[in-house]
């Protein structure tokens, strides 16, 4: 990375953080520190909701998914508007009828302290794990860029996030999110313009879409797949063909993720804190609807960026290996692997040439070249996979989807734009991490410290302790992130959450819709839902998005049954 890129990155990042934190630095009350005095405008709360959800993982991995799998991942977001409407109708009024600081405070009013404590504790475990993953992702980028190992990168990201969150509290996080979201959108659009300029120049506007379609990259909706079986697979062999183990299709997108979104945006303190800090019920509703209708187009843009990058590499020179670690290993291969590696490289070269010709033919209107394009694409993918296997025998470290976008940024974009894009990815990372950090702290402080340990602590002492607890969470998650290995980062975050989200949502559904449910029923439902989810995970191969539905249904079912049982008193 050149001096220019470093200067752009440092200036943009420093301004974003300073301007966000200066507005709320020095809060003296819990209401000020954890809810920004309930004075955040709806558009800022909406942008904060988006920035927190759009992590660096979404950016880096999303472009890689668009490159390899096309638009299919967008289906995951189809349920978002429906989930937001449900939250606006039932959840927002539920939270805003009392001056609460965490989502779980409401549960004490409805079910008593045990349910509140159990649910908040479940949140703390799941969010701490996800927080560590969120810290790990940008470290991959910076490590690839500077050849500095991942560990110091994780530490720097964790410390920067912790420092500005401790200084500004939730208000600082929200206002920083607003700036960060603007940088992210500018960065994405700038890359999109560059890639469109290149590909449209070579293929024409219609040719770009024809080529993307012929390569199978315009696969935004999958309704039915002849290979699906309806019985859930219970062994590895059946995993690929079961409907239930397919992560990305219309049905998972509508019925699996609706429970994920209801729980993430409606019951997860990381998002609820933005809603609680906005000015009114209507402000919270507007914030949710705004993020629902900007998220889907933004996600489409990220995936489309991946598709355009596929065309760009298809027309120019796709690297055989994207991961710098793989490239370094390839340069020092032991003797027995050099011949097969050279064969894989030659096969990739042939497939690449074939694909380039087929792309030009398809773009020129020759539909008969579609089969050749697809065969060449599959052959190039297979050759790349073979090369990765040879340089990296460990299966978990063979995927390189997270390096596709960064490879392009570091090798091809102008240096000022590289600086801006790194600032955007860093912004995405720390905005998600800061949201996680402030929510972990508010749950710890409000649901545990003030509830059980020091109910009579004055405001100044509580805020001082909050800052210490926040620093503890930041350092603990940074330490945990250092121990994480490489892998499909994007799915790790949602996977970790999906084990817990369904059951937490179930508790809130019991509170809202099962009048007979009491604390005993809610606690039994929560624990039962978690057990059923982990049981399903251990015995069947189903897509992690379905865990949300499984957990919610199990929690509500068990809670409803327990509510019907006669009470001892």
């Amino acid at each position, binding site marked *: 990375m050149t001096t220019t890129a470093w200067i752009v990155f440092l200036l943009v990042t420093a301004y974003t953080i300073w301007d966000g934190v200066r507005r709320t630095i020095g809060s003296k009350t819990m209401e000020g520190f954890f809810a920004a*005095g*309930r004075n955040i405008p709806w558009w800022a709360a909406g942008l904060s909701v988006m920035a927190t959800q759009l992590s660096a993982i979404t950016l880096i991995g999303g472009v890689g998914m668009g490159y390899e799998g096309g638009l299919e991942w967008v289906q995951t977001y189809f349920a978002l508007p429906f989930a937001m409407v449900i939250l606006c109708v039932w959840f927002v009024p539920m939270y805003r009828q009392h001056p609460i600081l965490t989502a779980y405070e409401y549960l004490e009013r409805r079910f008593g302290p045990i349910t509140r404590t159990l649910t908040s504790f479940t949140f703390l475990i799941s969010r701490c794990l996800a927080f560590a993953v969120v810290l790990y992702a940008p470290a991959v980028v910076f490590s690839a860029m500077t050849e500095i190992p991942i560990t110091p990168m994780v530490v720097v990201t964790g410390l920067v996030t912790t420092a500005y969150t401790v200084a500004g509290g939730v208000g600082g996080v929200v206002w920083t999110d607003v700036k960060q979201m603007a940088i992210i959108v500018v960065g994405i659009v700038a890359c999109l313009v560059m890639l469109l300029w290149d590909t449209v120049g070579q293929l024409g506007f219609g040719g770009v879409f024809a080529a993307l379609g012929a390569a*199978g990259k315009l696969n935004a*909706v999958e309704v039915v797949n002849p290979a699906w079986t309806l019985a859930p697979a219970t062994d590895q062999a059946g995993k690929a063909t079961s409907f239930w183990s397919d992560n990305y299709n219309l049905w998972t997108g509508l019925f699996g993720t609706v429970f994920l979104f209801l729980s993430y945006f409606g019951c997860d303190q990381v998002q609820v804190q933005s809603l609680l800090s906005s000015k*009114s019920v*209507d*402000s919270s509703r507007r914030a949710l609807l705004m993020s629902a209708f900007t998220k889907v187009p933004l996600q489409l843009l990220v995936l489309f960026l991946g598709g355009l990058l596929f065309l760009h590499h298809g027309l120019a020179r796709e690297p055989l290996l994207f991961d710098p670690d793989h490239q370094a290993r390839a340069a020092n291969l032991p003797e027995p692997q050099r011949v097969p590696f050279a064969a894989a490289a030659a096969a990739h070269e042939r497939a690449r040439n074939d694909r380039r010709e087929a792309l030009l033919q398809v773009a020129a209107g020759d539909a008969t070249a579609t089969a050749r394009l697809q065969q060449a694409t599959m052959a190039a993918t297979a050759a790349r996979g073979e090369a990765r296997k040879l340089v990296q025998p460990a299966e978990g470290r063979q995927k390189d989807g997270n390096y596709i976008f960064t490879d392009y940024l570091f090798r091809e974009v102008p240096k000022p734009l590289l600086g801006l894009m790194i600032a955007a990815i860093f912004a995405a990372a720390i905005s998600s991490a800061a949201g996680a950090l402030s929510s972990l702290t508010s749950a710890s402080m409000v649901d545990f410290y003030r509830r059980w340990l020091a109910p009579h602590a004055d405001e100044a002492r509580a805020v001082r302790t909050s800052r210490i607890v926040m620093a503890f969470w930041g350092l603990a998650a940074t330490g945990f992130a250092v121990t994480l290995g490489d892998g499909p980062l994007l799915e790790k975050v949602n996977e970790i959450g999906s084990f817990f989200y369904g059951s937490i949502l179930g508790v809130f559904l019991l509170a809202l819709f099962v009048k007979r449910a009491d604390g005993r029923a809610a606690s039994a439902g929560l624990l039962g839902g978690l057990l059923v989810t982990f049981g399903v995970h251990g015995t069947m191969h189903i897509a992690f998005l379905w865990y949300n539905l499984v957990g919610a249904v199990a929690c509500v079912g068990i809670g409803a049954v327990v509510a019907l049982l006669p009470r001892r008193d």
Partner: protein
Amino acid sequence: MATPPSPDSGDAPPPFGSWPRTYMLAMVLAVVVVLLLWLLTAYGNTPLGSAR
């Protein structure tokens, strides 16, 4: 001293006149977007491995 805003007072009317109408329009828009993307897939995409 200025009175802080009440947590339950709306600071602006709903985007489309009333909340029920806003929700209805939001869901209709969501369905239209999914349909448009389905059309894009059905008429513009050739699933990988299916071309002959």
